[in-house]
């Protein structure tokens, strides 16, 4: 059983373009998704039904419809209404709005986890709104929200592989491309699997470092008040 | 409960008679020594109460007897079986030793009856019919036969602890260990459990009981053992223990405990 990784090496430019696009898509979609998540979360927790219900509908739609269907709808159905987006743009949009819904739920969970009693305690102590939002609520929100949030971001990086189905030249598409030229399915798919694994593991390490950095800083700073 | 072992009258060498024998037992958690030089012999049908302040190692001691905790030095022999790493020995000892916990530890996903049936059927391969008769008998003994189909969460604390006692009894153990069985109960339910334990004692069950209930100790115990900081400080019959203790630490403890 011989493996021909040389064929892959020869086509490494395709691979590199794939990695680049995967990272590009992910790291643009994630911040947009977070932004959407914050907005939707605020709507979701609003006391006014007219703001709350659109948010609920949006979240439920994104949670119960597969991302691939969303992508196909945007890429194949939208042209019928005159909107013809490129694969890449479709990717950005779909990934962001899909992730946005999940971010919104995570943020909502965080707010609800902190809400109980903390606002009461802060107010009872006579602290002012701006002060306690910054020093009491937000640091706690952050610890609740960071782990699941990074999980969503990680999922978005992996879901970018779906865009290979609408011919976006990200990593999975690159594998199909190379395989089509060299007929080396084992080598190509194994290689991209490993590359994804490396990307994700590095991402996790990065976020772990961020978390411990922020934890010790913010929380102890807010504790320094004592 | 008849077995081949028990009926010799000799008192010179108590080894074959003793239900539990602990010799020179020492235990550490890492560098911290929790039990120091424990020597304790419990005869068949004897009722022992172990008391002492928190952290004195009394729970740890009885949990070593059925290997829920491991001792590093010394010997523990239960019903003639030495307690070692050997899994067969441990399993054998566990089927002879019944235990009741402070937190009851009933299995919440099983009914009262199922809680009692599980061990006899799984460990001794008792048939379901026999196990049912057994369970019925012991549930009657602890006075809650009518709750057999309820789930633990539907019972009061006192009822749950009594079920726990019945569950342990269904294995027909030769000795019962009680680890602060009433400490987690509301005051009005303590008595029902103590009464059940007293009846067990009256019927001749060998018992080692860790408890703060001094009234129970006075009434039921053959011997009271006082532990402090991992050591056995004093071991005496109740009259001596409560009224004539020669030991300072014991007296001090009794003063604090008997305030209420």
């Amino acid at each position, binding site marked *: 059983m011989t493996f021909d990784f040389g064929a892959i090496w020869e086509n490494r430019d395709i691979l590199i373009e794939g990695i680049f696009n995967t990272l590009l898509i992910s790291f643009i979609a994630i911040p947009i998704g977070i932004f959407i998540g914050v907005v939707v979360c605020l709507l979701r927790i609003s006391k006014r039904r007219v703001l709350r219900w659109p948010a609920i509908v949006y979240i439920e739609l994104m949670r119960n419809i597969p991302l691939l*269907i969303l992508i196909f709808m945007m890429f194949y159905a939208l042209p019928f209404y005159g909107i013809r987006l490129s694969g890449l743009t479709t990717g950005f949009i779909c990934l962001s709005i899909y992730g946005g819904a999940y971010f919104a739920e995570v943020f909502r969970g965080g707010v609800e986890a902190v809400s109980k009693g903390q606002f009461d305690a802060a107010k009872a102590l006579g602290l002012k709104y701006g002060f306690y939002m910054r020093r009491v609520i937000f640091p706690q929100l952050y610890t609740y929200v960071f782990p699941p949030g990074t999980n969503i971001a990680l999922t978005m990086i992996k879901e970018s592989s779906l865009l290979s189905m609408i011919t976006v030249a990200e990593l999975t598409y690159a594998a199909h491309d190379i395989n089509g030229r060299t007929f080396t399915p084992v080598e190509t798919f194994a290689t991209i699997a490993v590359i*994804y694994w490396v990307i994700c593991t590095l991402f996790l390490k990065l976020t772990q470092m961020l978390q411990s950095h922020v934890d010790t800083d913010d929380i102890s700073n807010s504790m320094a008040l004592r | 409960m008849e077995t081949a072992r028990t009926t010799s009258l000799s008192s010179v060498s108590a080894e074959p008679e003793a239900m539990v024998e602990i010799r020179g037992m020492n235990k550490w958690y890492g560098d911290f020594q929790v039990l120091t030089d424990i020597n304790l012999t419990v005869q068949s049908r004897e009722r022992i109460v172990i008391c002492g302040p928190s952290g004195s190692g009394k729970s740890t001691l009885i949990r070593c007897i059925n290997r829920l905790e491991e001792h590093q030095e010394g010997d523990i022999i239960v019903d003639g079986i030495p307690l070692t790493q050997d899994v067969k020995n441990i399993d054998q000892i566990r089927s002879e030793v019944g235990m009741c916990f402070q937190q009851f530890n009933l*299995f919440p996903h099983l009914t009262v009856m199922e809680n009692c049936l599980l061990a006899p059927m799984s460990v001794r391969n008792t048939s379901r019919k026999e196990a049912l008769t057994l369970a019925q008998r012991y549930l009657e003994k602890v006075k809650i036969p009518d709750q057999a189909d309820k789930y633990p969460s539907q019972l009061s604390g006192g009822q749950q602890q009594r079920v726990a006692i019945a569950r342990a009894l269904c294995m027909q153990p030769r000795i019962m260990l009680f680890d602060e069985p009433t400490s987690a109960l509301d005051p009005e339910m303590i008595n029902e459990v103590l009464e059940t334990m007293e009846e067990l004692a009256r019927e001749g069950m060998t018992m080692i009981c860790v408890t703060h209930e001094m009234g129970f100790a006075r009434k039921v115990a053959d011997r009271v053992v006082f532990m402090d900081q991992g050591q056995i400080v004093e071991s005496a019959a109740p009259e001596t223990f409560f009224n004539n203790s020669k030991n300072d630490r014991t007296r001090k403890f009794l003063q604090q405990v008997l305030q209420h």
Partner: protein
Amino acid sequence: MDLQFIEIIPKAGPLFWGALYTIFVGVIACGVGILVGTGLLLMRNSRFWLLRTFVRIYGSFIRGTPALVQILVFYYALAPLTGINIGPFTAGIMAVGFNSGAYVAEILRGGLSRIPKGQWEAAEALGLPKHKVWFKVILPQVFNSVIPLLVNEFTMVIKITPLLSTITLVELTRASQMLYNETFRPVEVLLLAAFIYFVICFSISQFGEYLQRRSQKFRL
């Protein structure tokens, strides 16, 4: 905005078969996932370092690579590698099942950590052998406590099934692709497909909440 659902309804039969096939594949893959997950959980608690490390690496790999890639690996790479020829159905079930298994293992691990130590002690004190402690006392409680999470995992599995369209399985997504290629009405077809997925996943979540309400009676 000229939706002509009328046109596709008569031809929508394949969509419903696709939906059934999706559910069918989902259930089997989920079953595989639960078996794999339970196995991983037991291996994780094993005395053998090798098994424990295997579980960690396995989990890291599954969670660190896209499901699509895992499916492609199973379909394209497994056969040349091992000489075993498996059809797309088996490859798909295995890929999705092994994927789900890693996540199920994590769910079960969380549930396991919430079982009070006293349950282990009571079971051991009664003399129950290890395998009985696991299967009669501990695992039933673990599964009971994580039902909503497992149901959520099932919806995740359903949402992965569209990826199987890439390896020729005719589940709902593939069926809808075929239909809009035939009718040139992707809008209606995809909306219908989205609607069907929504109904499936939403119903499952509602069922999960019902199950959770029922299992509350076991709680203290």
